[in-house]
């Protein structure tokens, strides 16, 4: 039987039971759309979140913590438990680490989340980060200039900082304010044990604005490292201060992404706990992959149900076509001819459902994306403004074709039983029917 004839017969047969075919196809469309939409959302989410971190800068940085602190913070993978001896992170260690092959720079990690920057009547609660010369090397200035490590009161701000201010009096957020060259104050509150609050204000001048890179830097205020230490002391009070020269954490910058792993290993050997963005990304990726897999499985369940629908439709059509199958056999159609016809009817349903399902899933996902973006824009603080361009939905090539192929395959499998049944009918019995 020629292929063109086979297809014509199949199309004719499917047209004969238009409504039934349509309903069965819809079942496959829903299943396929579910897979595409769910997996697409999972993939999109994963890409957008890891994408935020993937810019090379952060991929080259490693956070190092002393062992004890690591355990306080909870289990972190890669930790090798050491015994009693707890090695402090001090300048000596910093020197040692800086000599590890591949290390480009080191900066102690000093971040203040509750220090406020006030300029005129506007206040920003963006994080303040201490930067030494090594750290400054990692930053790119767009306007103004970088400070030197030794300049106490000069500060640099990230590219999006000017969107984070709100008016002191009205408490309404303001859109961009002039920052370059502005004088202001960094305000630190300290809660003492007795229950009182003391406020310290440090005058500062904004000397530079960074290029846009990634949210972590874009939304940070950078101050010279010694100034940061002083701010930290002021906010925590004497009881929290570490011994002079000791750090709670340091940031190590690798020359390249490739060298990160070996640096992490060596630091771990020294008895500390090194975490690279890469590792964290890896964990996040794995979690997302599992999540996406689960979502995909859910969609697959829907598709499986649709496949049962295909089987049902075809089996029913066999009952109605008993006599016709008898006639086919009488005029000389072989068992395999009849088998083929029913098999291809199942395939055709799978194919149509797959193609339209992928399209439907794509439209649905994109729609969801638009709605989500709208909500994020309207209802969240401006600090998240950069997220409004999020692409939460992504359909990679493999998903597109994979879903269609999966639907067709399901059609193929669904058709096996009905096709065999039809082919095996006894022609005389079949002709007697109806």
């Amino acid at each position: 039987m020629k292929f063109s004839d086979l297809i014509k017969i199949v199309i004719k047969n499917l047209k004969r039971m238009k409504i039934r075919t349509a309903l069965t196809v819809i079942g496959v469309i829903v299943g396929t759309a579910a897979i595409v939409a769910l997996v697409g959302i999972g993939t999109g989410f994963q890409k957008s979140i890891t994408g935020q971190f993937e810019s090379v800068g952060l991929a080259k940085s490693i956070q190092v913590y002393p062992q004890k602190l690591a355990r306080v913070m909870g289990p972190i993978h890669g930790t090798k438990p050491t015994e009693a001896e707890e090695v402090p992170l001090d300048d000596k260690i910093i020197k040692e680490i800086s000599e590890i092959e591949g290390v480009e720079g080191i900066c102690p990690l000093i971040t203040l989340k509750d220090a406020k920057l006030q300029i005129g009547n506007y206040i920003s609660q963006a994080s303040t980060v201490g930067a030494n010369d090594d750290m400054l090397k990692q930053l790119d200035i767009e306007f103004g200039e970088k400070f030197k490590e030794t300049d106490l009161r000069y500060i640099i701000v990230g590219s999006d900082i000017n969107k984070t201010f709100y008016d002191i009096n009205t408490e309404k957020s303001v859109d961009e304010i002039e920052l370059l060259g502005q004088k202001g104050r960094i305000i630190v509150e300290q809660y003492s044990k007795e229950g009182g609050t003391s406020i310290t204000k440090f005058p500062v001048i904004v000397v530079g604005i960074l290029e846009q890179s990634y949210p972590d830097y874009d939304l940070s205020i950078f101050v010279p490292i010694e100034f940061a230490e002083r701010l930290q002391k002021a906010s925590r009070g004497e009881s929290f201060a570490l011994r002079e020269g000791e750090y709670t954490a340091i940031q190590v910058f690798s020359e390249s992404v490739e060298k990160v792993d070996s640096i992490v290993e060596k630091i771990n050997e020294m008895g500390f706990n090194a975490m690279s963005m890469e590792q964290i990304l890896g964990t996040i990726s794995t979690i997302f992959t599992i999540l996406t897999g689960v979502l995909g499985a859910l969609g697959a369940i829907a598709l499986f149900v649709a496949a049962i629908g295909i089987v049902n439709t075809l089996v029913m059509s066999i009952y109605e076509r008993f006599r016709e199958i008898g006639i086919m056999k009488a005029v000389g159609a072989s068992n395999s001819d009849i088998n083929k016809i029913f098999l291809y009817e199942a395939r055709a349903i799978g194919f149509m459902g797959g193609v339209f399902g992928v399209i439907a899933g794509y439209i649905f996902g994109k729609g969801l994306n638009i709605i989500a973006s709208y909500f994020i824009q309207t209802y969240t603080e401006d600090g998240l403004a950069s997220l409004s361009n999020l692409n939460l939905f992504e359909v990679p090539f493999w998903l597109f074709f994979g879903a269609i192929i999966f639907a067709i395959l399901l059609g193929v499998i669904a058709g096996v039983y009905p096709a065999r049944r039809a082919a095996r009918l006894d022609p005389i019995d079949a002709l007697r029917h109806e």
Partner: protein
Amino acid sequence: MIINKVISKNNLKKESNYIVELENVSEEFKMGSSVIKALDNINLKIKRGEFLSVIGTSGSGKSTLLNLIGGLLKPTIGKIIVDEIDISTYSDNEMANYRKNMVGFVFQSFNLIPTLTALENVEYPMIFSGISRIERLKRSEEVLEKLGLGDRLKHNPTELSGGEQQRVSIARAIINEPEIILADEPTGNLDSKTGKGIMDVLKTINEEMKRTLIVVTHDIYISYYSDRRVYLSDGKIVKIEEGKV
């Protein structure tokens, strides 16, 4: 392969007088716990180009005999030799090929596919031979026109009279140029006048196309068209009559 054995065109075969030989053929069915003998030890030789009638009442086994010769059924016991090949040993595929190329069926209730036009019904068997569409349509048109249905090509069976439907059925039966034409009560659903017309058509095909024609009927008068009459009763041959009436 098998196809070559089954398609007997004149240039291939040594001439044997008999196209069909049934040797000790019996057919048994199981109905619940009992066994029914539809045919009991049938021995029959059918000549090439012969017009044979098989006459009997309902339950005599005449349709079973037809189905056996037509390759729709395999005998429980015995051999059926068609064109020197024992088709009782055929596989399912070989049987299908046999039905496609060696025999053509005409049924009492026409058995046309209602969703296809007359033309499409006639071209149907050729689809399974892989013949091109253009060729199929050409041949089908020719045959239908010869049978006087040239202006009914695009009609569905429901739009045709009984006689016209049966003629379409006959056209379909001969489209692959089979050696044997098998007709099971071809006039059963027709009035006597139309019935006669159909028998005339079949007779013409038998004489002009030189095809063996086996007609099963319970109507004695229909059987008078044929050269020879075989009478069946309770699955056995009770009488064979030669000569025209």
